[in-house]
């Protein structure tokens, strides 16, 4: 199929050959650049999250707060309390960024909604990073509430909560990238939902329960989970004299996993958009 200028069409068959058509090539519209497109997607995603996801954010926060209250009876301070509070806080990030984003992309892909983005001149990375960024940002209030509540409940210091400003975006990047990749790669939306749920359950069980009570295999699985490094980094800052080198080391792992998982998600988007 081709669209050629009316004046060259009826006169002769030759007019349909490539040369004359090429001379009349239409000027291409502008391409959306990465950063402005990313900001536009981010804004749009944040607004739809605000409209549609607020109840779920409450669920995420209550879930974490509930877990901390439950664990209060089992854990009595020290390293275990730090692990519980850090794990419950990062769980909010896992719930939204991993679970909900996997569901979103799974449904968007299954319903054909990706066509909208795929027929706009927008870099795939802008769509994936914009959505991942919005979902990660959306976890901020829930994570803060959980962390503050946990600190008060377990009598932990609030002094280093600023580290959440690094933990949320870095753990958010790693988990959102994973969630987006799940959603875009899963052949069916139900499978995307399932993967998202499983990822979140893993973050819950492996992140919240104190690690030194786990058997070796489970600890290995825990080491493979990107959210673990966010939890570890955050938990370390509750200590009397945090070892910042380890904190930043853990955060660097989050950042590394984030770069890789977002790159995979971008590749998955490209693959899903053109079928």
């Amino acid at each position, binding site marked *: *199929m*081709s*669209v*050629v*200028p*009316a004046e060259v*069409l009826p006169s002769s068959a030759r007019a*349909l050959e490539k040369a004359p*058509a*090429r*001379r*009349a*090539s*239409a000027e*291409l*519209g*502008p*391409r*959306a*650049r990465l950063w*402005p*497109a990313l*900001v*536009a*997607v981010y*804004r*749009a995603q944040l*607004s*739809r999250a605000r*409209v*549609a996801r607020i109840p779920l954010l409450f669920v995420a926060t209550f879930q974490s707060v509930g877990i901390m209250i439950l664990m209060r009876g089992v854990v009595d301070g020290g390293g275990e309390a730090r692990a519980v509070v850090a794990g419950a806080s990062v769980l909010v990030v896992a719930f939204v960024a991993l679970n909900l984003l996997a569901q979103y992309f799974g*449904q*968007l892909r299954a*319903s*054909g*909604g*990706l*066509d*909208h*983005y*795929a*027929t*706009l*001149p*927008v870099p795939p990375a*802008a769509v994936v990073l914009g959505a991942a960024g919005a979902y990660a940002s959306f976890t901020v209030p829930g994570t803060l509430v959980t962390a503050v509540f946990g600190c008060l409940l377990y009598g932990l210091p609030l002094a280093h909560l600023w580290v959440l400003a690094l933990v949320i975006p870095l753990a958010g990047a790693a988990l959102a990238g994973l969630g987006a990749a799940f959603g875009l790669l899963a052949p069916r939306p139900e499978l995307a939902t399932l993967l998202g749920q499983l990822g979140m359950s893993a973050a819950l069980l492996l992140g919240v329960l104190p690690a030194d009570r786990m058997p070796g295999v489970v600890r290995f699985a825990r080491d493979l989970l990107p959210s673990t490094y966010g939890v570890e980094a955050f938990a370390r800052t509750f200590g009397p004299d945090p070892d910042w080198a380890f904190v930043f080391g853990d955060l660097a792992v989050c950042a590394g996993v984030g770069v890789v998982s977002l790159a995979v998600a971008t590749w998955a988007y490209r693959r899903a*958009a*053109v*079928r």
Partner: protein
Amino acid sequence: MKATDGVDLDIRRGEIFGLLGPNGAGKSTLVRQLTGLMRPDRGSVEILGHDIVCHPERAARILAYLGQESSALDELTVSLAAETTARLRGLEVRRARAERDAVLEELGLTALASRPIRKLSGGQRRLACFATALVGERPLLVLDEPTTGMDPVARRAVWSAVDRRRAERGTTVLLVTHNVIEAETVLDRVAVLDRGRVIACDTPAGLKEQVAGEVRVELVWRESAPLHVPEVAALRDRAVESGRKWTLRLAPEEARAAVATVTGGAAFTALDDFTLATPSLEDVYLALGGNVTGLVKA
């Protein structure tokens, strides 16, 4: 299994070209290939001098596509959907907002601008999605059943917006439809698709000339057809039955005879309604051997 096979179409710059056919005829596959969403196994796609098979990413910079699915936009407000789409078509903020305002005003959507799209009625939702296809001007609009569910006012807004762009900027439109009435009224030329093949391509008037010697007679019976009337029984072989309705394509003198039969005597008491009409694109489609279920008259 091929979705489309041997399709060869040339769309002229500035025309409204239609793809008409029932669901499953291959319209959507063709559109996906044209918009760079799907690479054809064989053949070429050229838009305004650009090879879309070699450079599928160029399609997004030449055309605006309105698909049937709005799930990417559903949870945004009308205003944000239009603005975001304009931004993603490469417009900078101020121009994106100016175009957003102009298009919403043009389509009569300004009052709905701050409402989330999924809270609108079906027709309004469709119109809001149409607005996103217009922001950030493109020389080719690919519209997949743009007016589904719309009331007459919204339909008029769509076709005036299309006409304006065509008159002012020479915009080309590829319209996918299974609505024969719309096809007849808005299209310059139409390709009729059936099972992945183009079975005809001409102006609506040109296509209708193929069946110009015929008249369409529709008979609706009260309960069942009075088959004890021999003339009615004879018509049955040529009728397409759907429930109580018979549709017949007859030569003018046959049609006169048929109408005379059913409007008198025993047949008339069994008759609920009848219409006599000049052929439509639906009749062309039938005459060409198409399978009519799936075409819509609205």
